[in-house]
């Protein structure tokens, strides 16, 4: 339990990481470093996307499962660690 906190803190403390969100299975953020509205927005959008991605992966091979999803955009990179009961999202800014 303490390790979880520690790792979470380390990840959040990295330079370049804008924030992290932990989402439960219904798409509701349970722990976040953003403000509420942003967190809810990210959670809603990315939850849907993750479900879709997982559906795609599993449809191709039912024994496979989604583990990680990364979305690179011009400004940021969004990293989603997908699990069965929770999803963790980290948003990182490219450091020049």
């Amino acid at each position: 339990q303490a390790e979880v906190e520690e790792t979470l803190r380390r990840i959040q403390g990295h330079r370049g990481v804008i924030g992290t969100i932990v989402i439960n299975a219904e798409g509701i953020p349970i722990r976040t470093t953003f403000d509420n509205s942003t967190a809810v927005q990210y959670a809603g959008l990315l939850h849907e996307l993750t479900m879709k991605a997982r559906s795609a992966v599993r449809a191709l091979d039912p024994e496979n499962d989604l583990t990680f999803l990364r979305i690179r955009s011009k400004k940021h990179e969004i990293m989603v660690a997908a699990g069965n009961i929770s999803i963790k999202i980290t948003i990182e800014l490219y450091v020049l």
Partner: protein
Amino acid sequence: LQVFDEEGKDVTPHPLFHADPNTVVPRQGKRLASTVHLGATGSGSSSTSISNASTAESTSDETAEPGSRRDTTSLADVQVRREEIEEELTKEDLDRRVDIYLSETETLWILEMPPDVVSVESEAAGRVVERNKIYVDICKTRPGNDRFVEKTMQTINGAAKNKEVQCDRIIMEDKGVMVTSWDLSDSFYGLAIEPTSKAEGGRATSGKSSKSRTAKEHEQTSIHSAYHCSTTSSPVISDSAALARTHEEEQCPSEAILRSENFQQHLFFMERILMENIFQPKLAAYRQFPVLIDPDVTSDTSGTAAAVKEAEQEEHDRGKKEEQKEAFTDPSILSDLNKTPEETVPPRLEWLWSYRCDLTNGHSVSSMAWSKVNPDLLAVGYGAFDFKEQKKGLACCWSLKNPMWPERIFRCEHGVTALDFSTSSPNLLAVGTYDGSVAIYDVRSCKDAALLASSESSNKHTGPVWQLRWVEQDRGATGDSKKERLICISADGQVTEWLIQKRLDCPDLVKIKRTESEKKKLPGEKGRKCEVLISQQAAGMCFDFHPKDTNCYLVGTEEGHIHKCSCSCSEQFLETYRGHKGPVYKVTWNPFSTDTFLSCSADWSVILWYQDSQRPILTFTSTSAFVHDITWSPKSAFVFAAANESRVEIWDLSVNIFNPVTSCLASPRGKFTSVLFAKNTDCLLAGDGEGGVSVFEVQNLPAPNSNEVRCTR
């Protein structure tokens, strides 16, 4: 079937169907006999016409044989029938031969419908024909006849009544599901794998029906339940686990998520991937991927990759083409790699990254060791060399995938002065500390406790353990299997071999017993005479086993002498090499040309020896600083690295024996205390006094052309 009320009266309901008793009697008889077996006090029959006379019927055998049934020859009264059956049956009756007579009963008329047609030949035929004719004539005369009157009739039209009925509105719901192939396979495999546990889990869920479960989308529930089931090993455990989990989830779902191991793993991955993002160019350089600047050029990473382990590296490389603008480092430096190493470009050390974190800041790196199976796993021991600077020691395992936080952290009471990974059991890490004790850790577990420790052993060293190594040796006598021994040398002058009594499967701390067979006393020498052996023990600083002949090894002492010893002869040295004027910190055999070895000492010099000659062959001095560590390059017979206090130097004997070919300065305060070459790539690791281990890439070092020994004379 008999029903009795309180007084014993038979109140068996009569059957509604009254069959003809004559036909039914045979069956009834059998039933009578069979119902008597209970020995009921009063029993009647359920026969229709028979009243329930409660006569005591004798107990007859349950399996009333047909033989006991009398035949139904006549239309005898049923009473008679019953009496006959009331006879007591005895054993002899059963064996008695019984005759059964079958006969035909009377014909029973059930239905008689006389026909409307008669045969032409019957006697009534004539009359019927005649009557038919009369009828036909009458029908012909009907139209104008007076005897026929037309009369109309009207049926009654009953009054019609409308009755309307309206039912309740039927609420319809549309439910749609997207069926995907994995959904089907989940349900299928979930049922197949653990049908009982699924039932139990289902029971548990239905019992508790936590809201988090029911609120899931339909597509999720089947996945979750299947996942849930497949993670359980036995139905019993799954039941309690399911209950526990649902209960927990009901209480605080978010806490459960944060506590779950799954989440931990995701965090782990996330951190690794973040690291990869941050360190990607450095890691790519470490792996010796070519760094491409031109986005149009298609990359060909497979050719030059030394060891492609992670697929993400490749995909990163391709991704790197697109994100040139966000390069972490100046690409122009790395573009040097594109040129083949030529003699004109001098070799240089490029700093890639540094293994350091808050935990290790302030500790001085004392030793480093690669894991024998995983060339990316590095164990670093932290501890001070000086007596004055002692603090608690630390041994960390760093992985290439996460340069900012060690994978394993083992805290020790005293400063760590030596460590080594085992070859035969690659998860064992032996750590020697400043107080002379040796501990063995299992790097598979994350616990901070040592697997075995020698702190309670009575035979432990009394001085700091300066070096320890797992050595594979043939035991000769006990068969041909190579056994591995843990050998260490300490400042109390003893080279000892530790035996591990119990194999490390048991988690208790077990004392390590030490054999006495190898205790060596290193005599110091006063003066420069060679043949005097004094009993005073000299402190041993380092040792190294011969790469080919595992019986012979070198020992470096604090007085500056190097002794060649053999395992088979523990009293005397085979040779003594004198040349250093200060304590010898490190001695290593050349891995390629096994007759030469190198030693470094605090007298600012590094000396190359030939094992047959007692005088040094070459002496390398570059700065006026202690040389803490030296190591040969695993790729070339002529290259070695040395850690002076303020610099790390690389010497190439084929090029220049007076000066190092390249060196790298540390930060002004820091000093380098140990060096290590990487085995699978051209990198050099240097540990410094601040607790960081810097990784340098060695560029443009000429590759060895031949493996021949060149004796530098």
